[in-house]
């Protein structure tokens, strides 16, 4: 696979500026995202990595505008130049048609009582008015593209007859039938075996390069994100705390949380005497302390960290949300 074919265009396909989201719980508005700013260009893959409650899935939902009821979003979300928050009715449907969404559990998103063929062609036939025979032909072709053999036979089968890996391929093929500009993949391989995961990832990767798609890849797995994506954004308590080229995130992470995450994961090549432990547990934005959200778990935290809210700033070829970054790190020369 050549990496040189990817050339992100000047204007990003996805642009988030200072996006905040709150969900109403009873009488209260509870924050789930706080000042999230991100861009993804055509043909580019951005990984969003975080633990429970970090807001990684919510970020994807904000882009697709697939939000839970009683959600308030502020800030700007632009996809292909359109302001996503102001869309409604027809324009919202058009927006969603630009978007292919792939979830963790394909079984939960494919109608179990309809055939794979029915599922795959539903939108083509009902919305785009394509004749059924032609729609099925296109579906078979799309299945072939993602490496499913004897696609005609698969189209006549029901979801329960297919393995998880095969269903995820069906999901990807279906999404590609809609000719999207953006793919949002939310933990697409978490439920799959490792060998199947590697296959599904390879297909996603190939598709986004061939079709110049903007890929947003959401995962809890830092290694996987950096293997799949050009850039990785790390989220904690509803905020982006670091963005960096994926190739540099292991060796050159500059946010203490990212560093700690890298150290906490065991590695294949070496048995560590002890894994680095991050004390405590990840917090949701609603329970985040004042100042830096990570400071109670941070080994570098000083008094000021509890008082000053850090902002995401360019630092050492990436962006970092930490007031002590200059004290902790000697920035490296830009031309590494």
């Amino acid at each position, binding site marked *: 696979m050549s990496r040189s074919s990817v050339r992100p265009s000047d204007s990003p396909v996805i642009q988030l500026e200072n996006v905040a989201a709150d969900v109403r719980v009873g009488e209260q508005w509870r924050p789930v995202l706080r000042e999230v700013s991100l861009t993804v260009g055509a043909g580019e893959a951005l990984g969003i990595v975080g633990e429970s409650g970090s807001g990684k899935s919510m970020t994807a939902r904000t882009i697709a505008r697939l939000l839970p009821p009683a959600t308030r979003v502020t800030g700007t979300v632009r996809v292909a130049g359109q302001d996503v928050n102001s869309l409604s009715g027809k324009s919202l449907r058009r927006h969603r048609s630009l978007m292919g969404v792939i979830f963790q559990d394909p079984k939960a998103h494919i109608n179990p009582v309809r055939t794979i063929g029915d599922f795959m062609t539903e939108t083509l036939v009902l919305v785009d008015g394509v004749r059924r025979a032609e729609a099925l032909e296109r579906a078979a072709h799309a299945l072939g593209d993602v490496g499913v053999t004897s696609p005609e036979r698969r189209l006549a089968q029901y979801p329960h007859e297919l393995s998880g890996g095969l269903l995820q391929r069906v999901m990807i093929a279906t999404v590609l039938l809609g000719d999207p500009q953006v793919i949002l993949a939310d933990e697409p391989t978490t439920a799959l075996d*490792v060998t199947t995961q590697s296959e599904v990832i390879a297909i996603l990767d190939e598709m986004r390069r061939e079709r110049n798609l903007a890929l947003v890849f959401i995962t809890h797995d830092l290694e996987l994100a950096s293997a*799949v994506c050009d850039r990785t954004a790390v989220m904690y308590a509803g905020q982006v705390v670091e963005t960096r080229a994926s190739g540099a995130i292991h060796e050159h992470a500059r946010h203490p949380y990212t560093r700690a995450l890298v150290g906490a994961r065991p590695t294949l090549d070496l048995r560590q005497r002890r894994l680095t432990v991050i004390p405590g547990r990840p917090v949701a934005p609603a329970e985040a302390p004042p100042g830096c959200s990570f400071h109670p778990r941070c080994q570098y935290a000083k008094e000021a960290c509890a008082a000053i809210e850090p902002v995401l700033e360019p630092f050492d070829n990436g962006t970092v949300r930490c007031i002590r970054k200059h004290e902790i790190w000697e920035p490296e020369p830009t031309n590494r």
Partner: protein
Amino acid sequence: MSEPTPPILSVKGLGKVIHGVTIVDDVSFDIPVGGSLAVVGESGSGKTTVARIITGLTRATAGSIALDGTERTTPTRSAAERRARARKVQLVFQDPYSSLDPRFTASQTIDEALRMHGGNADRTRRRARVREIADMVGLSEKQLDSRPGMLSGGQRQRIAIARALAADVRLVILDEPVAALDVSIQAQVLNLLDDIRRDTGTSYLFISHDLAVVRQVTDDIVVMREGRIVESGRTADVLEHPTDDYTKLLRESVPQPGWHARRSLSV
């Protein structure tokens, strides 16, 4: 090695056939006292069935199991005998959300296991023991009085581990114990498991699909595929120099820096 101590667990020629379908086929391995053995494989490899046979949740159709020198292939004849067996082997499941009684506080859960397995210790002695075990797994006084619903996944998994240790356990079977936990919590639990083994000499049978986790907490490994063992040996050796093609494929499928996903086969 001229170590005369018999293994804590010895499995020989284990087989399981259900409705003519072979689920487990000729599986043999030993776990030395204080050892830690990984059983890795993908879905359908039979790894969980092996664990279920060892704990007595299901019966083997072939082979034999000896735990701590005692044959336990045949089903138990009495509740007392079943309890005696359970005392020696305990299970920790993947999902800490569904494996604990939601109405019990952490200390009640541990105390229950003590009453079942800990002989006839009185209440004061049991309370002291609950504290001791809670200390070992890092549960605070406040968490001991909490019900699972108020605790996080990592804290619940600590309760499950504490419950397993409450019995005078010799072998703990851990079925994907950290798969459902956040990365930062995983590290805490993996370190804890290492400490417990070092301090108490408890042996582990560690079932996992995650080779990096296995590298961290086990000494020996068996790789299973479609019910059979395809490779076995010291964990470090097998992961560094796999000889079986399937083990190699598993190894190469793990994403790491510089990794490229491969589209090897069509289905």
